[in-house]
């Protein structure tokens, strides 16, 4: 833990949230846990920015909220990816891959 952790580059949080929601609806806490877990604890979602980001994505119509019951039997707000959100995710993934590839080329030059 600790030193291995990375700060999220600007603008990637939206992409991560969308990708995390791709398999199915999750609530906010689960989203942050899943990101942390899948990235092998290297990425930690800044707790303070997760909810504003979720609300922003909701406003843009990329994710839609619904109230459901969690594993421990509590009411929780689940977010699901919308059609618009799926398209957005595809587009963002594509451009992110291109960016990584391009940055990689520069770093590997000579």
């Amino acid at each position, binding site marked *: 833990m600790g030193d291995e952790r990375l700060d999220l580059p600007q603008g990637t949080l939206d992409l991560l949230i969308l990708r995390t929601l791709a398999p199915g609806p999750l609530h906010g806490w689960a989203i942050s846990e899943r990101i942390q877990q899948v990235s092998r604890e290297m990425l930690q979602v800044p*707790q303070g920015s997760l909810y504003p980001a979720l609300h922003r994505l909701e406003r843009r119509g990329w994710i839609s909220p619904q109230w459901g019951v969690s594993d421990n039997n509590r009411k929780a707000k689940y977010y699901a990816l919308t059609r618009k959100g799926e398209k957005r995710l595809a587009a963002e993934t594509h451009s992110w891959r291109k960016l990584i590839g391009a940055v990689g080329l520069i770093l590997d030059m000579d």
Partner: protein
Amino acid sequence: MLNDLRYRLRALFRRNTIEQELDAELRFHLDGQRDKYVASGMTPSEAARRVRLDFGSTDAIKEECRDARGVGVIDEMVRNLRYARRTLAKRPGFTVVATVTLALGIGASSAVFSALNAVALRPLPFPDANQLLVISQYEAGAAQPATFVAPARLEDWQRMASAFQGLSGYYLDDMTETSGEFPERILRAWVAPRFFEVCGVAPSIGRTFTRDEERFGGAPAAIVSDRLWKRRFAADVTAVGRTLRIGGRSVAIVGVMPATFAFPNGDVDVWSVSAPDAPYAQNRQATWFTVIGRLHPNVTADHGLSDLARVQRDLGRQYPATDGKLAIRVTPLKAATVGGVTRSLWMLFAAVSLLLLVACTNIAALLLARNAERQHEIAIRYSLGASRAAVVRQLLTEAVVLALVGSALGLGIAIVALQAFRALGAGLPRMTEVRLDWTLVVYSLGCAAVSVIVFGLFPSMQTARSHEGVSNRRAETMATNRLQWTLVGIQVALSVTLLFGAGLFLRSFDQLMRVSPGFDAGRVVTFRITGSWSETVDMAALKRRMLTTLETLRATPGVAAAATAVAVPGVAFQFNTELRIVEAPTEASTKVTARNRFVSSGYFDALAIPMLSGTQCADDAPVQTAVINRAFEALYLPGRNASGSHVQDIASGRIGTIVGVSGDAREQGLNEPPAPTIYWCASAPNPMPVFLVRTQSNDPATMTETIRRTIRQIEPGRAVYELRPLAERLDDTLAENRLRTILLTSFAFTAVLLAAVGLYGTLSYIVSIRRREIGLRIAMGALRSTTLVLFLKQGIGVTIAGCVGGLWLSAAAGKGLSGMLYGVTALDPSTFAIVLGVMIAIGALASVWPAARAARVDPIQVLREE
């Protein structure tokens, strides 16, 4: 976009629910995290502390969520509005001045816009009104203007023209209706077949004429106006099917037109068919109809004209004697209806827009000064982290509040002004259509929006800019001052322009009032007696009737003279004729054209037009006689004895003996110099001539009842109408002129007042911020008089600069006025001089107060304030 809007609306109106949801969502997260820490072995209290550390302030996150949702913008707006209300309330003087200024500007301009819209912009109240044309025939090369159209020719046009959906025509006739208690004069429009189809308007009750009713000998049918229906039948639907008794004949009512239908004019009571297949309508020289046509969709007026011209050329070959020389002219119905008023309205609209601009500029200058006083407050906002956009938004909110209140008040002013407009312009076309509608509201809101941009955005940006980064206070103050002075200069320039225009109109009106008309309208009463064109079949009887009426009138106590004429003198009546002077040497090739008037005996006495030589018209002349005016004699019969000469009217072939020469009278209107005129002597020129009665009393209105009673005694079956003093009718002809003069003058005075307030306000502000400097100067020994002159010079300097700009603008604007002026040129130098004098005097007056305040600054007190 839609999603976004729905989201924001939910955010706005379901605020509590959303807040609760947000709360629950965050709590769920915190609990989840805490449980996780507890599961990893922390004590519950340690876990709770850790969670709070991880998460930070929930309030801050909530705030960010609200921002993300877009709720923040609305919150900020509400806050700004509340703040604007407080700051505006704190300075009631400024707020009242600004709102009233804006309300005046928006109110006046909305009212003028509304009139412009109703008269000039809105189509006539017919479906697809732009397809409607007025079609007239005229003799190519003749001096005579357009004449009416023969029914037979109209039917030919209808049959042969391809560009039109239909052509129809009408003429107006006064009738006496006798089915009621008293004989009533009604105005009947005789219409050709297809009239309502061409207009495109159907009766609101009943039907239009059947094909059978449109043929000669068909059942007499009438369609009545909404007005007559309400007046005579109390809006009873069973009126359709009842009968009227018009001119002694029973006519069945088959329909009632809607109230909005006012064609050919709003006074028409009854529409009836004039059958084109009547035997008496077959003469191709009969002149009856004013023709209207409806073009096919997407056909231009030019195409319609060339189509009809082709048809008329064919007819010319077929009937060379009657149709050979005729040419066609078309005018869009709207232009024919509205005519020249459009120009006056556009002029007024331009003027009132300038006024609105002056008002906005004025408020902009006031706001700049006020914002400058708030520098301290704005600086604090910046230092607390407000963005420039936020500061602009906050300052702009104030402007928006002012604009909204101003436009609401302005709407009220516009409603009142519209009433005044309608009263002043009562004689003008389509004035009854000027009314309050949604376009007025939209327009005044539009004005408010534009004024916010002019007076709000601009000062807000200026104020906000001056605080960004490292500020140089002195440079900023200078920049703000320069801007303010520029705004004042603009106000002065625009005011000078308006004042100059008003000056020209006032002088023009004054010149018009000084004109000697050549006749005396003062003691004359005019009226008509109902008659019918059918009376012209027995001209001798008609002449007997006229003479009896005239003799009875002349025998009435209080009457000095009585006469008939075809038209009211002093009211424009276009009728030129081409003449030949029988005794003129054959080689004389001058074309003789003159205004044609038909008058009875006593005409020159009734109007007090002096006879220069010869005699007046007589009732019992055995041959056709005529009187000419001095202009005619001077132009066509110079140095010859006019009396005894003979003239021939070329169109009709009528020959008349000249029996006398009268003085020149401005019978075409005060603004028209007397033209060569021939007065044909005719006691019964038509069945409903204008009667002119000269009374012995100075107030001719007192004679109206006597006249009505006298006529009723001898003509119980006829109605007297249009009974009014001649002076009143002449006054009506000035309606448009008076309307624009009064309005432009009031706009100009308002603008000058605003400019004076602007100058005063700006100079006062500058004196107040330079108080310390002035105090120091005086303490150092500057003379108070020098201080006074310093500021006075500044105020007057800006006024003069504004005047120079205004002169330039006036010269440009003057060109647009040239056709509307009488007796002054559009660049009248004395008007220029007076306007400049007035403006500079007002500028000096507005500056002297603040300048004197500067001179009275007490250095001791200023230094103590430090």
